[in-house]
């Protein structure tokens, strides 16, 4: 029997509902926790919305960047940490040279490109030698690269690499300061390109969601490949779209405090473009090859695909995207810790994907988007909920770092439990 979702599950609506629940178990569990946390924390909705929109804009690119390596069977790997370092290094130079704004961002992306590319090739080669152990190998690789990064910016800058810059370099003249402020530089370089009021943004999002239906049906008819019916998911999607559009129109007509929230639409446009790119990419020859390699490396090889090469290409793409993602992340944050910001990037992106229902073997854009919202909801409410529950702010902070690790652990556990259940239903003999 096959090991993915039981292809001949129980018939009828009851079966469909049950399947929906088992298939989306991880996501539903966290949806519940998120809503409960939001209630307990007592956070006012507008504040929550401001925060979540900001965080999604900031993190979206990094999470989406993970889809491609998963597609190619590289698993949820931490190699995006390397990409993030490449992005950060270029930001440091950009700040040193005093280039800011959108041109600064573009230049940053251009310069980080070859660095990330080289790192991607190296990582890809390494992973080809460590098959099936991607998650742990890249985790260790991340630590190692972090050491080199620290060596360069903590010791070599000012000694081997001449750099005279009082705001950047420590007073001793050697090493970069631990925090770098991007105000007057790259801060909001992309975000400020275009900002629109939240209600308008909601309408656009709703329209995009609803508009995806006809587009998908056209694509589907042409592709004919994915003809499975997913009425429940489609229903949830349609309702979300309608709700977003309706809410936006209402708040646009009746002026409310939401109208004063201004969303970084430029950044969201970039995110949208990345989604479109991923959609396009999965329909190309290269994308198909990556999927094939990800599904079954042996079969791919026998059908003449150069699997090693495909995996390296996937790694390069995700490293480059991660570098750009980190640039987008930091321009929104406006300040970063030189030796810390990149470290958690991999962890958070992976947690977000997992929570959205992705697994080590399969990740979609939908899962990335849902995961982004859920993960950052957890992130926002957990310290507040912790404080409300235990009456201790310090404890709340612990709660937050606990959350990221907890999510990874819990969702991996739930995933394997789900697989176990499906196997029990499906296998035997």
């Amino acid at each position, binding site marked *: 029997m*096959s090991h993915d979702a039981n292809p001949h599950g129980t018939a009828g609506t009851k079966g469909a509902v049950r399947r929906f629940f088992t298939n989306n178990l991880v996501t539903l569990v966290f949806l519940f926790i998120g809503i409960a946390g939001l209630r307990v924390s007592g956070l006012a909705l507008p504040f929550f919305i401001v925060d979540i929109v900001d965080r999604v804009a900031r993190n979206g690119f990094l999470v989406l960047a993970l889809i491609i390596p998963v597609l190619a069977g590289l698993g949820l790997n931490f190699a995006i940490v390397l990409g993030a370092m490449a992005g950060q290094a270029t930001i440091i130079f950009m700040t040193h040279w005093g280039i800011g704004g959108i041109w600064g961002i573009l230049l940053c992306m251009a310069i980080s490109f070859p660095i990330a590319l080289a790192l991607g090739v190296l990582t890809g080669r390494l992973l080809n030698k460590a098959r099936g152990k991607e998650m742990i190998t890249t985790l260790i690789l991340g630590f190692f690269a972090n050491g080199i990064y620290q060596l360069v910016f903590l010791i070599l800058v000012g000694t081997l690499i001449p750099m005279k810059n009082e705001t950047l370099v420590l007073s001793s003249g050697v090493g970069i300061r631990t925090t770098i402020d991007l105000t007057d530089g790259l801060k909001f370089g992309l975000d400020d390109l275009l900002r629109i009021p939240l209600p308008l943004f909601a309408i656009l999002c709703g329209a995009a969601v609803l508009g995806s239906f006809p587009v998908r049906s056209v694509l589907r008819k042409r592709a004919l490949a994915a003809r499975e019916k997913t009425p429940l998911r489609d229903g949830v999607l349609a309702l979300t779209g309608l709700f977003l559009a309706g809410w936006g129109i209402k708040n646009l007509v009746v002026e409310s405090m939401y109208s004063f929230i201004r969303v970084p639409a430029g950044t969201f446009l970039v995110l949208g473009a990345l989604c479109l790119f991923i959609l396009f990419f999965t329909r190309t020859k290269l994308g198909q090859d990556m999927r094939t390699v990800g599904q079954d490396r042996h079969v791919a090889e026998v059908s003449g695909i150069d699997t090693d090469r495909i995996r390296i290409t996937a790694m390069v793409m995700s490293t480059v995207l991660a570098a750009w993602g980190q640039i987008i992340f930091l321009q929104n944050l406006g300040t970063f810790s030189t030796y810390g910001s990149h470290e958690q990037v991999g962890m958070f992106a992976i947690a977000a994907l997992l929570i959205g229902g992705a697994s080590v073997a399969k990740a979609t854009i939908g899962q990335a988007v849902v995961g982004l919202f859920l993960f950052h909801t957890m992130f926002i409410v957990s310290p507040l909920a912790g404080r409300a529950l235990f009456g201790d702010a310090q404890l709340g902070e612990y709660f937050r770092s606990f959350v990221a690790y907890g999510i990874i652990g819990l969702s991996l556990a739930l995933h394997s439990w789900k697989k176990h259940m499906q196997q029990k239903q499906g296998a035997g003999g």
Partner: protein
Amino acid sequence: MSQTEEFVLRMKGISKEYYGTKVLKGIDLEIRPGEVHGIVGENGAGKSTLMNILFGMTVIHSTGGYQGEIEIAGAKADIKSPFDAMKLGIGMVHQEFMLIPGYTITENIKLNRETTKDNPVSRVFGPKLKTLDMASMGRDARKALDHLEMGIDEWARVAGLPVGHMQFIEIAREIDKSNIKLLVFDEPTAVLAESEADNLLAAVRKLSASGIAILFITHRLHEIMAVCDGITVLRDGSLVAHKRREETTIEELARLMVGRSIGDMIRNPAKSLPDRNALEIRNLRVQMPGEAAKGVDLDVKDGEILGIGGLAGQGKIGIANGILGLYPAEGEVRFHGEPLPLNSTREALKRGLAFLSEDRRGVGLLLDMSVEMNIAATAVEIQGKFLRRFGPFSQIDGKAVRAHALETIKALDIRCTGPLQPVRRLSGGNQQKVCIAKALVLGPRLLFVSEPTRGIDIGAKRLVLETLVDLKERLGMTIVITSSELAELRSVCDRIAIVHDGRIAGILNPDDDDAEFGLMMAGDYGKR
């Protein structure tokens, strides 16, 4: 030069060693355009290994390569990977499936040969970013499937399809290739019912008529006699003989393969059956794609060997799969008078049923584990067999496992270096024998076996059938054999039920007339 160019392929003095064991010893092989060339030999004789060398498979090159020379169309060829082989116009239908279950049939047929079309991005960044042209891929797939007379939807997912369909999808993939000069079929009919196999043989003839050379491996010698022009016989890695079809017979081939002559098919000593029913099946409906049961009523008598026959696609395979809970089933089944809960494999196993599935690859040999552990694993897990208990603790009884393994290896003639050899390193047919051993060790009260001799050479086939008869005689086990080989059913069964259109068309005796069987299978019985 012109003399050698007559051959599509010449292999000269091919030798191969796996971990110090010589498995091929100086094999020569020549084949001309449009020729169908059969390769026969016992399980483990080296047939697949020879073909893997020709196709540049990684197992060969990661275990030290091979010696000897390969010439393709008169030019020396150095085939290091499947990619090289394909470039030279070699195609191969492997003994194991090379399909991606999550993909549609179309995607599988066009695997790595997808039709693409230009888009603005690909014009700038190169052909790798061309978009897949699914519509045209679908048309190609349709054409290849039609060629094989397969009515199946080309957009269906491969996961969950019956194995016979999977085999045809693989063949459709090779047919769809345009530059093919030499096509290798490694036991393509092993997973097919006889009628399907006939289809395949017809396709082979058509292909060879168009000038494609074909290497054909099978254990069904009558197929060899039906399509092959030349035949190569291997035994224990050595070349035994090259024969033309006209100058040989099935008996001679069998003798050459095994090195001794094989007696007649065994017969099941007929005995009067008790009137007790071991299994009562009422209105069983099973949703198995392509092999659906649509209301089966059937009684299995205690201690008999009951055969289930019928044409492919009529639903004979669905029955056992439904009762054992591998596919969703509805209806009523009583086992020794007690109702048997459906849709639960575990429950069925616990109550003393066991199943040897026709889909051997799917039901989990642990390829990297030893032969002995593979045989024992299910029994340990489900029945607590082979366990030594120390109060609350238990430990696997290595001695018992070993003893049992040695016995089975001998009984079924599993060709391996010993009970500790990883199953991955056995030949395809010997892996099948391990599957059989795995089902037998459960010592069930009722055993379902589907296609017991699939992929097994004629010598071993006799052993397997003998073992089944012996189980019935000695232990009084009830056995239900589903098979597409009527001759096999007739030699060992007490009664044979024929399935037509998802229902039992009737029950015949093994020595009833051929015509009766034919009519019943076609659904025309009693309409005369």
